[in-house]
């Protein structure tokens, strides 16, 4: 265990230093990514104004708050892409990772986590700009901010596991892009990324409650911009923890199957 902590500390330092070398690329990526929530924000604010000030309980200011926090959560949500597996396998990196007495996922969890600190620093001025333009209604309590700080990491872990599992499909088939696209489409609709789930039809909301997507995206946003009582905040963290455990267990199962498949046919 001490060994693992040591590795996390070392790799996070290394990753952070590595990521500092490409601030411009990072910025362009973040700015390009802002287009999506801004579009949603503008469209829904227009709808809200047309409907007399609010729709689904969200005013333009509430939408602004939702989608601006969205940008932070979205950035924290960026983990090892399932498309990266094809690259891993083909470049022989997977073979190299398998030679180590350490589960490869640790490198990615610690590596990406370290980058997030840099990302958050870059995000602040962009958020300030967006807030200036769109005037969000945001008055979180201290408790909300504390829970948010925990919830985004819970979201990070859940999505890491889910996308790791998704990526491993590449061990069994090469026609992966179709499956990935389908997954991302579902995630878009059921996680609160396209719209706050409150605006979705009832049956969608009920379905989404049982799936992990919402807990990796909408939950942290709602923690900060919504009005959840403390009981609900902590209950939400509990459900996040549950999903972390479930997705990790599932990941281990699929990983073992995947490695057996990989070593059977070679890299």
């Amino acid at each position: 265990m001490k060994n693992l902590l040591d590795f996390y500390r070392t790799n996070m330092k290394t990753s952070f230093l590595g990521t500092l070398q490409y601030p411009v690329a990072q910025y362009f990526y973040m700015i390009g990514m802002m287009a999506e929530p801004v579009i949603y924000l503008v469209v829904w604010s227009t709808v809200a104004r047309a409907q007399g000030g609010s729709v689904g309980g969200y005013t333009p200011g509430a939408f602004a708050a939702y989608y601006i926090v969205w940008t932070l959560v979205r950035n924290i949500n960026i983990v090892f892409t399932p498309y990266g597996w094809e690259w891993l396998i083909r470049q022989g990196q997977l073979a190299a990772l398998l030679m180590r007495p350490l589960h490869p996922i640790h490198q990615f969890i610690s590596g990406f986590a370290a980058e997030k600190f840099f990302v958050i620093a870059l995000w602040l001025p962009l958020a300030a700009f967006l807030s200036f333009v769109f005037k969000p209604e945001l008055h979180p309590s201290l408790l909300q901010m504390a829970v948010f700080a925990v919830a985004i990491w819970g979201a990070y872990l859940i999505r890491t596991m889910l996308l790791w599992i998704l990526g491993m499909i590449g061990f069994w088939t090469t026609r992966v892009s179709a499956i990935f696209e389908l997954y991302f489409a579902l995630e878009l609709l059921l996680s609160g990324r396209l719209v706050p789930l409150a605006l979705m039809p009832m049956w969608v909301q009920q379905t989404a409650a049982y799936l992990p997507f919402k807990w990796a995206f909408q939950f942290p946003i709602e923690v900060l911009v919504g009005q959840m009582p403390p009981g609900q905040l902590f209950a939400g963290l509990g459900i996040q923890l549950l999903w972390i455990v479930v997705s990790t267990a599932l990941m281990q199962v699929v990983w073992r199957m995947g490695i057996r498949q990989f070593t059977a046919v070679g890299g």
Partner: protein
Amino acid sequence: MTEQASVIHVANLSKTYFVPEREAGLGAAIKSLFKRKLKEVKAVEKISFEVRAGEVVGFLGPNGAGKTTTLKMLSGLLYPTGGAGTVLGFTPSKREKDFLRQITLVMGNRNQLQWDIPALDSFELFRAIYGIPQAQFKQTRDEFIELLELKDLVKKPVRNLSLGERMKMEIVGALLHRPKVLFLDEPTIGLDVTMQKRIRTFIAEYNRRYGATVLLTSHYMADVEALCKRVVVIHHGQILHDGDLSGLVEKFSAHKTLGVTVDDGVDLSGYGEVMSKEGSRVILRVLKAETSRVAARLLAEQAVSDLTIEDAPIEDVIERVFASGAPPEPAL
């Protein structure tokens, strides 16, 4: 004197691949989504050998012979389809942590080091991954840096290093945890001659200092000649020869070369196959059995000022072994 225990024990190890056969046409493509036609490819077929601690064994063979497959099976990357292999008492495919901590696999041009940061930082990472005690780590690291003269280069980002320098760094990184067994797959591929020599020397030195067992595959005879007393020749997934390098020549070479110095312009094609002719020096190739007879004839019939009798160059031997396809008849 007790016999040294074998560190690597391989018995009837086999690896067979089932490769999907794809046909052209839309109809066949759709059919293949439901039922795949598979072709059997025997990459490695029932090979057996033992390696004792501290041995340096070279695996020689053309592309596709099965050398890399064998190495991958012994390092745990590939699951054998038949037979058994153990390394240090472990079953490699189980990939136990204690096993992985004692071995290392270096594959020619695939890198493990992080691209954007100095190699020194990557070494730090390896220390953390393998859990190397600080004192031992520092000592090993500094020792290797000095051996390969890398002091000025370790602080530069890896992407700024030349190919040879990068390879040196890769090897250092691969050995920091003082593995007992080294699997080296084409470690000097793509490097210039000087760099190849440096790396060979380093491996030999590591083997000497730490008594590590080394399995090495290579295209380059020079690698094998310099490092390995024992050579395993693999072709079409089977072992053709396992023993001394000189024994290899003995076994497979049906010829000897005669170096003859005569007067310019003399035609010696009647004595044997003329391999080269440079001024007054002619290299002839004759069947082993004929060697003494041809030599005697030459000395008797020609004005020979110098005559040498040598084994066929190893490259030739190897080339002929592989070019012939099926295992050749051992020469008398």
